[in-house]
């Protein structure tokens, strides 16, 4: 959801401030969305590729995370999984399925609080 700007001469309302608070500190039931791109060298079959996705929200414990591969289907790697989920973000991992210099996948994620 796009944030709204406060205008000069107008009162700053609680809702103006809270849109920032609820971006940086999600309340229960809110979600954070984004995209990822994981690319790595697979020097051997089953080589691990991973990346850490920091969330914008801090100080709120997420209940779940879900990821897809809608931007780039896995190429030379397994379907990615999410792990190490906490208030700072989560990790995306995949393993190589071939010896290749270019294993990659990409998609969107949704963190639910």
């Amino acid at each position, binding site marked *: 959801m796009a944030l709204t700007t406060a205008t000069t001469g107008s009162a700053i309302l609680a809702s103006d401030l809270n849109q920032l608070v609820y971006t940086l*500190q*999600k*309340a*229960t039931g809110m*979600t954070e969305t984004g995209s990822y791109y994981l690319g790595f060298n697979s020097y051997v079959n089953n080589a691990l590729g991973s990346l850490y996705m920091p969330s914008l929200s801090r*100080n*709120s*414990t*997420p*209940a*779940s*995370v*879900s*990821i*897809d*591969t*809608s931007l780039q289907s896995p190429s030379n790697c397994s*379907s*990615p*999984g*999410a*792990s*190490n*989920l*906490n*208030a700072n973000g*989560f*990790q995306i*991992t995949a393993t190589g399925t071939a010896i290749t210099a270019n294993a990659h996948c990409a998609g*969107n994620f*949704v963190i*639910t*609080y």
Partner: protein
Amino acid sequence: MALQQISDTGILSWVCTGEGCGNQITTHYLDERVAYQQSVKRARDGFPRAVIALPACPECERQTALHADYTRRDILRLNVLKPVVNDIGLVQGFVMHLPHVRNLLLHHLLHQAGRIPHAPLLPLLPEQRTLHPWLQSLSRDVAHAFWFPYSLIDIAAQVPFEEYLMGLHGGRPLPPAVEPLQVRAPGAS
């Protein structure tokens, strides 16, 4: 999407968050695809960091993972616990938001089934605690929404659970058993 329900028979249900998908997914908690995945075996604070992976959505193949291995710090955040205040604003106790309650319950179920080597930080509601008719009439996740914060606060030595619940209820006796929700099909009279 967080778990929406854990039925008495162990059926998990949730909704896929895939764009334009919204598929309702169900599976049993003993499904092999419900997997405990540890990426950090033991962090510096002594707790592992893990998720419970759910089966991918059959429609869009989106993968969902639930938070597992809650630490005390994870649980004390305000989006996990909701304070219950009295008329003059004093905090009488806390209730836990249901998505986190269900994550903890699923962790317990998988631990009891031998799929996770350790139990979560907070214990299950002991059977003898459910003697009060009001508690008996609540669903398991709602009863644990009261029990988990109580067990975290660790006031068992001073305040029995029923008295703690009475405090949340404004000092009044607990209500009689509540009627279970009747779900009717659309159009049914």
